[in-house]
């Protein structure tokens, strides 16, 4: 995890420095805040990765240059199979957003579909596959 952690921490430090330079040379609010936001985007996950890097060192086979393919045998992760919920969630989001342009009444079907999709997603995950 070392490279991943350092990449994100590096982003955090870079934007911290640039943000400070920007503030003290321009006193411009919007840019400064956005640069600080970017700094946090690097520091927060970066420190998480760094913490785990220290704990697990290079125990993952993809972190070791001499690892063999057999070391990665077995369960990699769970990959949900075909699922209707992404499509329905997308449909719900589309309808809900269009309510802002074409009429508040669209909120009702849109939000209903989104809630159904969220429920479906969660239930599907709990059952580890198809609902």
């Amino acid at each position, binding site marked *: 995890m070392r490279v991943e952690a350092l990449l994100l921490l590096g982003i955090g430090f870079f934007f911290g420095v640039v943000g400070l330079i920007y503030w003290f040379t321009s006193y411009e609010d919007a840019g400064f805040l956005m640069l600080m936001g970017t700094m946090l985007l690097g520091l927060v996950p970066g420190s998480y990765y760094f913490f785990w890097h220290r704990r697990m060192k290079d125990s993952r086979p993809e972190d070791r240059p001499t690892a063999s393919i057999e070391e990665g*045998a077995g369960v990699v992760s769970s990959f949900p199979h075909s699922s209707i919920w992404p*499509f329905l969630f997308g449909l719900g989001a*589309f309808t809900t957003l269009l309510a802002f342009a074409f009429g508040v009444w669209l909120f009702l079907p849109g939000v209903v579909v989104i809630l159904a999709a969220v429920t479906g997603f969660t239930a599907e995950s709990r059952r580890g596959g198809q609902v």
Partner: protein
Amino acid sequence: MTDVITLPGTGAGVEGPHEGPVGGHHAEGEPTGFLKWITTTDHKVIGMSYMVTSIIMFYLAGIMAMIIRAQLVTPNNSLLSFHVYNELFTMHGSLMLYLFAGPFAFGGLANYIVPLQVGAPDMAFPRLNALSYWLYLGGSITMLMGFLTAGGAADFGWVAYAPLSNAVNSPGAGPDVWILSLVLTGFSAIFTGVNLIATIFYLRAPGMTMFRMPIFTWNMLVTGILILIAFPVLTAALVMLFCDRHFGTHIFSVQGGGVPVLWQHLFWFFGHPEVYILALPYFGIVTEVLPVFSRKPVFGYKGMVFATMAIAALSTGVWAHHMFTTGVVLLPFFSLLSLLIAVPTGIKFFNWIGTMWRGHLWFSTPMLFCIGFLLAFLMGGITGIFLAAPPIDFAVHDTYFVVAHFHQVLFGSAVFAGFAGFYYWYPKFTGRMMREGLGKAHFWLLFVGFWLTFTPQYYIGMEGMPRRVAVYPTHPGLEVWNQLSTAGSVLIAVSFAIMLVNLWVSWRKPIVAGDNPWDAHTLEWFTTSPPPHHNYTHLPPIRSERPTWDYNHPDAPSIGHGGRVHEHHLLNGHDGDRVGATSAPTNGHESVEPK
């Protein structure tokens, strides 16, 4: 007469954890046809869907460009009303930038290729991946809906500057659906960014350390991070704009104490990283194609990685170089950072040249398109350096000089490099080859058309013709240059008609591609064309950044400085073994035990 390749999905499949054997047929209840497409979570299907949709957007936006160029053949043309003209260039820009260049790269190519290149069975979050596509499709439909509204589509340019974009100056549903469409596609992009980063961080195959990933994957990682930096800012700005338009806020309007320039800060903080989001994947494609057709490894791999990071980091700090003429931004800060971007970009250029240097160059269609990219981006990039100097920007801002600059860089990347990638990976996606003759015809016609279209525009801009004008009564002498530019655009259109013919012919009269028709280097070329469900039945040992090459050419390892053979090759004892053919399944099999 060759046989038609059986399409994927009918071969060995792996079902969910509680069902179905590993076998060669559909399990019970498996959806087929249209339902199968709607419920897919396979990154390959989603990637193809993105590519098809975004290329359709490309052709639509291209038609709009043709109409724009037709209007500009004479200084006082009345082919289009001013209103329609403004709609057309707004939608041309919006479709190309938001709906083609980005989604084609990170939703299409990266979605398909990145899991393959790291040896993963799919993306880290397959259902989120599918959701990204549906949001993108919804966003595209919404954007196009603008043309069907009473007041017409948005007509304030793809950048929607306040106060022009407020409810007073741009009333109607057209601008509203433009905003909503970008919220949808913005979330689509953010979810894809999350997926890319998680996949690259967590799903790499054993032995594939970060510094052995292909450069395309590295570039997609950095692009994913840039997406997370930039798109939320755009979404926030769009929400603010919508509130100003409809909920009585005065964030950007002077009357209520708002600040119009704030829109520009927010938009360009997104907008500048956005154009690098649109460039970095295409740089990655070039870095994949050049080594293969030079028969050598990437030159300066680590330099490439650090250059990509530097470009991304710097690009986030230069947003106000689009605002030099406002008079209220800190010129030296933004000027210096903008000029500095030339350094990592130059490093990339030298590394690309180094890759070709002393190689055995094979000018296949993908390689030709890469050379086209190098030439286009060279000039486009250099004119960008001019624009980084505020006094020069004052002289040419908002003129055709800028139009020529950004078309050269965007066209160079998204079109030349993008279609290089398309021709390069087409055999992997479909198992069949595109026709070389038609491909070369496409390239040459496009190349000539491209230079003919955009080089006159530099001159037009230097003479002072502004951009976004439907007529140019103040510069009648520029008529002939505009006509040259329009003629070039016709050539571009014809070249893309040839590509459609090529696609049709390759589908109807297929030539079998095989696993690795280009003798390419990276992992995706180790598996079949197209790859089976969950991508790999076995993997070669991964000892360098070109595992497939090492497997096929164990006697031609990479040589570093001083002639040392790349040391990673000496550390393994498994070279040449086809690992996994009879041993444990390597990946993608959730709880199926080895037989």
